[in-house]
């Protein structure tokens, strides 16, 4: 009945949040990672602290596909509340594992799947005395059951537990005991392994498992950021948590215990933005991580920074909007908001990472760009990238890297000038030199959000106003040449069909390209990595007859931006949209493209 699926399956675990299942799920993920199999782990969790259903999905795929798959080959259903739904979600031929401590005969109603009961609670109650430990160990016990069913390498599991609890040997013992309870029960009662299982394959030693928020936080440390200001908001919080953790690791003076960083948990997002501006103004690299609602609140300062030309880095880990929306679900819904954030004529460079690897890289580039361009720069990640566990190539660091601090005149430079003018474009690239407070009275200038001229003086003169804002357009053209270029994946033969996507939609498109090829559809794929779009994006749009724009929002925001900024014929750009709050699955891309092409054929 069940087809054999080796290293190509989806395992989903349904538990109750706040019971410690995260570490159990991490164990499973890492065990398969160490077996050399490409894996990704995605959390589906409620906006709640304890007691509500939560799921963790692990996709195991020997080809390395990272996108969410809608299928469920093995479901571990440990939450009575969602048991029926969890069972319904299992793909035909799949397996359902449940805790058989309590009978559930009435509900076991599917004949096209295999249902396996293991008395996890009973086993743990018999073997552990403490109530809290019993709950925790129940999670570890299902790891044991799965280890037997999925053919996981038990030596690796043991090593992982020993590493995790290196400082608490007692916990090693109890965790191993729980693993064995589950493992032995499965061996004794089920046919192990299942037709769906894992097998040791390649070598993952040049890869790591990391989430995008951690990678971005680490990137800020490597970029030399010294001031981080923020207000807690899901799903961006992990970014500042990571920055703090890595700063504690790398930035505390060993002799004095003093900190080479400042983290300000602000009273709100408005203050976080103000703090970032203040710090950058005096010459410290400063950033804030936030999510959509935070950007709304920061918008006044964003426009201020654009007009007064203060560098600043804003990470927007996007979540489902509008308003509070669904804070623990993912979307790419703030691309329009960030591109033109604030009142008046404003536009901002945006970097669009597709995975944690790029979160790290682009965190560093964001500071370089912000200081080079003296303007706010956005890094648009999302909940899927930021909070889920990704397998990526190991991060590299070039020790010859030096930060680009942009045009900053020091005290000696200022002394050589006859007079210093803050907003005078000497080089013709739209960027004027700045000075830093505290250095030279001759270089002092006055930052003001009110009208100012190229000399930095207050103005209400129409010509002086226009002169300044027109220069900002020159700077925008400079930005176009500096932001990361798009990445083009050519089809195997000439094709009039193009696909454009960005960020976390990448994984689904990559897999869809292969699926489409099997259906006889060839497409060129361009992954946009930044705004403003550079010439390559415009050319790609010009060179294809039909371009599918794949993105995770309702209103086709990237498509709108492309129409606005490339002067293309809007009819050429076909939206392929996914905005349920779950990460975009490959099938959405394939179906969206096929439907459009079929409809065209019929017509």
């Amino acid at each position: 009945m069940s087809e054999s699926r080796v290293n190509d399956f989806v395992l989903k675990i349904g538990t109750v949040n706040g019971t410690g299942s995260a570490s159990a799920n991490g164990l499973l993920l890492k065990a398969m990672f160490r077996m050399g199999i490409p894996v990704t782990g995605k959390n589906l969790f409620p906006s709640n602290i304890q007691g509500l259903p939560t799921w963790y999905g692990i996709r195991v795929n020997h080809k390395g596909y990272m996108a969410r798959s809608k299928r469920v080959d093995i479901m571990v259903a440990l939450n009575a509340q969602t048991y029926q739904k969890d069972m319904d979600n299992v793909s035909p031929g799949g397996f359902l594992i449940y805790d058989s401590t309590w009978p559930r005969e009435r509900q076991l109603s599917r004949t096209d799947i295999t249902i396996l009961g293991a008395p996890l609670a009973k086993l743990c109650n018999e073997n552990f005395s403490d109530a809290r430990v019993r709950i925790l160990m129940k999670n570890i016990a299902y790891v044991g059951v799965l280890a037997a069913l999925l053919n996981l390498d038990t030596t690796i599991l043991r090593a992982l537990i020993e590493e995790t609890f290196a400082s608490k040997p007692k916990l090693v013992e109890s965790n191993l005991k729980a693993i064995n309870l589950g493992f032995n029960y499965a061996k004794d009662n089920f046919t192990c392994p299942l037709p769906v299982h894992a097998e040791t394959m390649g070598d993952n030693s040049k890869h790591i498992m990391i989430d995008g928020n951690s990678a971005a936080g680490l990137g800020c440390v490597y970029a030399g950021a010294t001031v981080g200001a923020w207000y807690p908001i899901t799903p961006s919080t992990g970014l500042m948590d990571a920055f703090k953790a890595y700063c504690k690791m790398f930035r505390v003076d060993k002799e004095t215990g003093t900190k080479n960083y400042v983290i300000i948990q602000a009273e709100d997002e408005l203050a976080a933005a103000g703090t970032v501006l203040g710090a950058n103004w005096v010459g410290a690299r400063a950033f804030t991580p936030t999510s959509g609602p935070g950007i709304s609140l920061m918008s006044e300062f964003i426009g201020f920074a654009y007009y007064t030309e203060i560098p600043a880095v804003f990470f927007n880990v996007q979540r489902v909007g509008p308003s509070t929306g669904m804070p623990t679900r993912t979307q790419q819904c703030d691309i329009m908001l960030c591109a033109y954030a604030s009142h008046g004529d404003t536009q901002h460079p945006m970097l669009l990472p597709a995975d944690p690897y790029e979160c790290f890289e682009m965190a560093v580039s964001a500071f370089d760009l912000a200081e080079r361009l003296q303007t706010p720069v956005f890094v648009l990640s999302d909940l899927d990238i930021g909070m889920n566990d990704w397998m990526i190539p190991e991060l590299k660091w070039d020790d010859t890297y030096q930060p680009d601090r942009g045009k900053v005149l020091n005290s000696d430079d200022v002394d050589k000038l006859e007079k210093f003018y803050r907003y005078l474009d000497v080089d013709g690239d739209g960027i004027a030199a700045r000075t830093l407070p505290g250095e030279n009275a001759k270089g002092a200038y006055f930052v003001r959000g009110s009208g100012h001229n190229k000399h930095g003086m207050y103005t209400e003169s129409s010509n002086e106003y226009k002169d300044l804002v027109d220069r900002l357009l020159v700077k925008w053209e400079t930005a176009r040449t500096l932001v990361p270029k798009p990445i083009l994946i050519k089809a195997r033969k000439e094709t009039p069909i193009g696909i454009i996507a960005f960020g976390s939609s990448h994984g689904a498109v990559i897999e869809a390209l292969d699926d489409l090829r099997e259906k006889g559809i060839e497409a060129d794929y361009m992954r946009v990595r930044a705004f403003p779009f550079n010439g390559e994006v415009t050319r790609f749009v010009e060179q294809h007859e039909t371009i599918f724009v794949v993105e995770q929002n309702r209103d086709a925001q990237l498509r709108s931006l492309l129409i606005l900024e490339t002067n293309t014929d809007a009819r050429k750009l076909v939206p392929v949209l996914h905005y349920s709050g779950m990460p975009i699955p490959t099938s959405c891309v394939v179906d969206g493209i096929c439907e459009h092409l079929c409809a065209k054929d019929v017509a």
Partner: protein
Amino acid sequence: MSFIKKPKINNIPGQLQNEIGLLKRDYEGVLSTLCAGCGHDSITAAIVQAFWELSIPPEKVIKLSGIGCSSKTPAYFLSGAHGFNSVHGRMPSVAIGAHSGNRDLVCIGVSGDGDSLSIGFGQFGHAVRRNLNMLYIIENNGVYGLTKGQFSAAADKGSKSKKGDVNQWKNIDAVSTAISMGSSFVARSFSGDREQLITLIKAGIMHPGCAILDVVSPCVTFNNHAGSTKSYTYTRDHYHPASQTDFITPASEIKVSYAEGTSTVVELHDGSKLLLKKASSGYDATDRSRVMRYLEQQRAQGEVVTGLLYINAELPDMHRIYRTSETPMKDLEYEKLNPGSEALAKLQARMR
């Protein structure tokens, strides 16, 4: 034209140099465009005098503000200092960022009652809470001048507007609010009392924490009529100094002698001293609960109590609490900030 350059005249006979060889004009800014007679201009003059007397190099100072008449004034003093005219009510957060980036800067923020007690009430509170090392002046006229005379949250209940409206709402008092929030330095003055103002500005600059200085500063255009409680006449009539302060730099010895039992000496971190003379009997600016009680009593009588009203020089400032490096963030070498490729490799070993 709202920006007028002030002519600088060199070599005026008798112009004094301060300890670092600067003249008073070196502490001035561009010409004020505020209304003639505006209390704010008197405060600007006092700021110029205080910085000159303290011999602080202008380039070591940052001057910040929000939005409103008061917030225009940083352009009128210390042209050699970098200035930051931010957005409405948000000056404190910019100051926090600036001071996080460079803790060596002397920071002065100028705000108004509209800027700090309404739109910026939250940020005002959090600057106090963090004890950010800055002088935070609230130029308080009880009115929104630039938008032509609406009451601010500082306007007293029963006060009359120029158009004849009577304010129905209780006022927010910056002084008692700051003290109740745990401020380390709270003072009130009057733009018309130059001597007291200069002393309090100097004390506030040297205080190693967030010094809140609320200055009653009458608006000659919209709030200087009969029935207003923020007019020159009303303030002069109800003016009540609770303490007299002398500021003494570390170099000078205490010469002023007060009767025993009527003065307190507060020593600041750099060795300078504040000598507090108790104008009212039993007033002790270091006893928070008694200060609160006293202010409440005087307020009920409609008195404008001035002077250094509360001080706790021992309260650690933001950087001391945080244990920030003595070297300003912006001066830390990149080599010190970047962990390098080896550390990255080692770190990633744990991610497998």
